[in-house]
């Protein structure tokens, strides 16, 4: 099976939010409240248990005029996924397409995946009790279809396909934009970090931090070794302190 991916080219996104709607419709995702955020035309806010696609509206001044940069965000489907490593029930698995998938019939809602996702994507649905996030339309991919968001995107801002081909296309697009004088575009695919790259890559203009994309996302398993070493050392010290206390103050080894 080929490793599939998303390439979201924000330079052609028109902020129509069709991806948000198509995702909700296909996956039967419930509404998650309605609130005026006052943050441009973004009243979705962020990814969550019931928002698996989210269009960001970044407002800025460019060439002396107000400019909008839209970017459709999604679960990154990390190469080394914190949620997948952390899941204690084995509910979170990697699919044959390389995506990260939460099996809803196994998840018991412990919530540990939520605090191990470096992108703040996963969350627990309060009225359901289980954790939810983008499934990468696993059902559609199995049937040979592209994910609903990519299918519906009217400007091909969301592209779906073979991950390596998409990476090539992103670099090509970067060169094309550069040739046209748009030099502030960058490709977000953190392959230099412990996340090891993502299966959803993005091309955005400006600084990635303006889109809440962490420049150095780290999978928390990187601290496991030092943390367990500390726990082992602390355990041995505990035993030692207790034995010594009873040797000195008690009657351990006394007849």
């Amino acid at each position, binding site marked *: 099976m080929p490793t599939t991916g998303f390439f979201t080219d924000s330079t052609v996104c028109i902020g129509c939010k069709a991806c948000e709607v198509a995702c909700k419709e296909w996956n039967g995702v419930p509404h998650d409240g309605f609130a005026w*955020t006052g*943050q441009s035309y*973004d009243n979705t*806010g*962020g990814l*969550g248990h019931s928002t698996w696609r989210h269009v*960001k509206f*970044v407002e800025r001044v460019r060439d002396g005029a107000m400019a909008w940069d839209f970017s459709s965000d999604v679960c990154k489907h990390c190469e080394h996924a914190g949620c997948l*490593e*952390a899941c*204690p*029930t*084995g*509910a979170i698995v990697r699919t044959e397409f390389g995506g990260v998938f939460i099996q809803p019939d*196994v*998840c*018991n*809602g*412990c*919530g*540990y995946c*939520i*605090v*191990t*996702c*470096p992108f*703040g994507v996963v*969350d627990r649905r309060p009225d*359901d*009790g289980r*954790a939810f996030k983008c499934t990468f339309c696993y059902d559609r991919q199995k049937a040979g279809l592209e994910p609903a968001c990519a299918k519906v995107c009217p400007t091909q801002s969301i592209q779906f396909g073979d991950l390596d081909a998409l990476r090539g296309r992103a670099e090509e697009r970067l060169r094309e934009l550069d040739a046209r004088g748009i030099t502030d575009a960058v490709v977000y695919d953190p392959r230099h*970090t412990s996340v090891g790259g993502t299966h959803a890559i993005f091309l955005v203009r400006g600084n990635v*931090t*303006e*889109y*809440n994309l*962490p420049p*150095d996302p*780290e999978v*928390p*398993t990187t*601290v*496991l070794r030092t*943390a367990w070493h*500390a*726990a*082992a050392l*602390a*355990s041995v010290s*505990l*035993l030692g*302190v*207790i034995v010594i*206390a*009873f040797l000195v*103050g*008690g*009657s351990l080894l*006394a*007849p």
Partner: protein
Amino acid sequence: MEGTTDRPPGDREARLDRLREDAAQRGAALEPVAGYYGRPLLKPAIWTWEVPAYLFIGGAAGICAVICLVAALSANPGLARDARHLAATGAALSPLLLISDLGRPARFLNMLRVFKPQSPMSVGAWIVAVFCTAEFGSVAGHLLGTFTGTTIGRMCDAVAALAGLLLATYPGVLMGATVIPVWNRFARVLPWHFAASSLGAAASMLELVGNRESALNMLGITAAVAVTALAVLTDFRRDPVSKPLVSGSSGMMSVVGDAFSGPIPLVLRLAVSLVPGARLIAAAFAVIGSLMTRFAWVAAGRESAKDPELVLRSPSR
């Protein structure tokens, strides 16, 4: 059309500038925020009160199991029995608290369908399972009182003591190996903090139920010294990541909890010859302080997740 549309664009910009100036003078201008409208980048833990309560009860029970084994080996059956009963009570409460915190409590057994060393939550579930089974065997064996029963009980005591050591320290790994900045930064310190805090709570609980062994007082002093030192290490540093440990409601809980389980019992225990009853007061402080620090660390994690700057600006480890 009338009104603003037929004004020249330059006029509009000038009006905007006047508005900005006016806002700045009144102090109403918005500060530039980090990230995307300053929205949180990370999701906070959804843990409710059950988890910090479990962290306290499980840790103290784990250390009680160790004290039980050592007391039994040092021919102190009275202390061993009290320690066993406290450990068993903790073993009975811990799974109840953990299961009720699940989104789907009926599926709690799914925790035991895999063993994943790379997941501290999975390792922890197995530690809890082993500890609870051993405590059940220990209590049942000793209740039976026959030679076979007592032998099984003693074997279970040994298993419970080993599992108890891990039960008291693994929560540090569980919280450290997350993306929550304040937990992640102190991944190396948290296991020691949980160990020291649990030790203080366990020794103090045994004193409060009527044991007066000097060994328990020594353990109380050791724990208080360690808690104080670790609090200095985590709380008082010029690192924005430590902020929720010293300010806001989580900081209040953290500082008071550290004071209650560190310096206050330390001074009281050292002044035991001057102040009558100081030992029991110290024990009560240590137990309350230990419980408070658990709630404080969980609350600090919630605050820490709200600040996108910690993730966007922090240099990679």
